[in-house]
């Protein structure tokens, strides 16, 4: 059993900056600025030169909730076959693994030769692989990789441009967005906004759900019932 990965705290802006830096590297390597849909497969296989496989990970690892895993020494990323037919989920899982590679592999590598602080306990061996389980979605390392994936596939500037192209200068506004989010209720209005942004911005490999979160995180939708907004 591979233990959960312990990682230092990272702010969203640090993660965003790491994703932007990777896109900048890709742009330099490819000679063109990547535009949505962000070519995540080429970033992984081409730029980072990682070996990519699609396989039944759950069977391979004897678990029921594994969507992706990265073997560090082998430079090998495996995505579970169950997400193959879903463009958005596949791209997000692959971008998530890229997040582990960019954000967490350096920590693990460093701790192989120094006193372990984060990635492992003092008497533990360095982890051979990072295995991503949906049940550990709230672990800091998993959250960071998810945030990285969102920033990589939906660069803030491209999402802003798509919102502007779709809705003009006025940000889309509705009542009770935050309340519905907190209650975990479906939000057909937000779903419609996300659909429009995905289409306008060419975010073909981004799911509606991922775009909804991104729009909220970037504050590109306005909750009219928010008292703070009223004050402004």
């Amino acid at each position, binding site marked *: 059993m591979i233990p959960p990965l312990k990682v230092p705290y990272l702010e969203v802006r640090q993660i965003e900056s790491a994703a932007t830096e990777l896109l900048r590297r890709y742009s330099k390597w490819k000679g063109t600025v990547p535009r949505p849909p962000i*070519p995540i*497969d080429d970033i992984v*296989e081409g730029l980072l030169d990682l*070996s990519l*496989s*699609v*396989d039944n990970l759950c069977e391979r690892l004897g678990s029921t909730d594994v969507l992706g895993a990265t073997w560090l020494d082998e430079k090998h990323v495996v995505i579970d*076959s169950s997400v193959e037919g879903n463009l958005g989920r596949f791209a997000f899982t692959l971008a998530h693994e890229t997040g582990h590679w960019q954000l967490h592999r350096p920590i693990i590598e460093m701790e192989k030769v120094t006193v372990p602080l984060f990635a492992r306990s003092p008497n533990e061996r360095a982890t051979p692989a990072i295995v991503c389980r949906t049940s550990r979605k709230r672990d800091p390392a998993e959250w960071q990789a998810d945030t990285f994936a969102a920033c990589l596939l939906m660069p803030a500037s491209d999402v802003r441009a798509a919102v502007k192209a779709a809705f003009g200068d006025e940000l889309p506004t509705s009542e009770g967005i935050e309340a519905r989010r907190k209650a975990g209720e479906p939000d057909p209005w937000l779903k419609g906004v996300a659909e429009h942004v995905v289409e306008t911005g060419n975010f073909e490999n981004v799911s509606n759900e991922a775009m909804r979160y991104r729009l909220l995180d970037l504050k590109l939708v306005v909750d009219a019932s928010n008292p703070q907004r009223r004050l402004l």
Partner: protein
Amino acid sequence: MPETLGDRIKRIRKARGLGLRETAGKIGISATFLSRVESNAEKAAPSEEVLKKLAKVLDDDLDTLMHLAARVPEDVAAVIKKDPAMPAFLRTARDQEVSGEQLLKMLEESKKKKGRP
């Protein structure tokens, strides 16, 4: 260690800058299947039809891919089936340790000799 079918496909695919899913999509197979072939985890070799498409997409030699997949191309099988002396000819070539390449050379030389005045 000699190169396997999976090693070759992966090497050429990467050299051509083709993605795993992109290649699988062009051939009309799942990325899972292509991935298993590439990692030599698939027990059943791809069909001739798939290998033909792979050769086209990867711009690779079909005969080499068929050989690595341990498959006999349909047209070759048809030649063997059509000519009753063909199995004996092939067995003789095998027993005398004459390779396909040597046979081709011999045929080429014989053709040249025939062409002389």
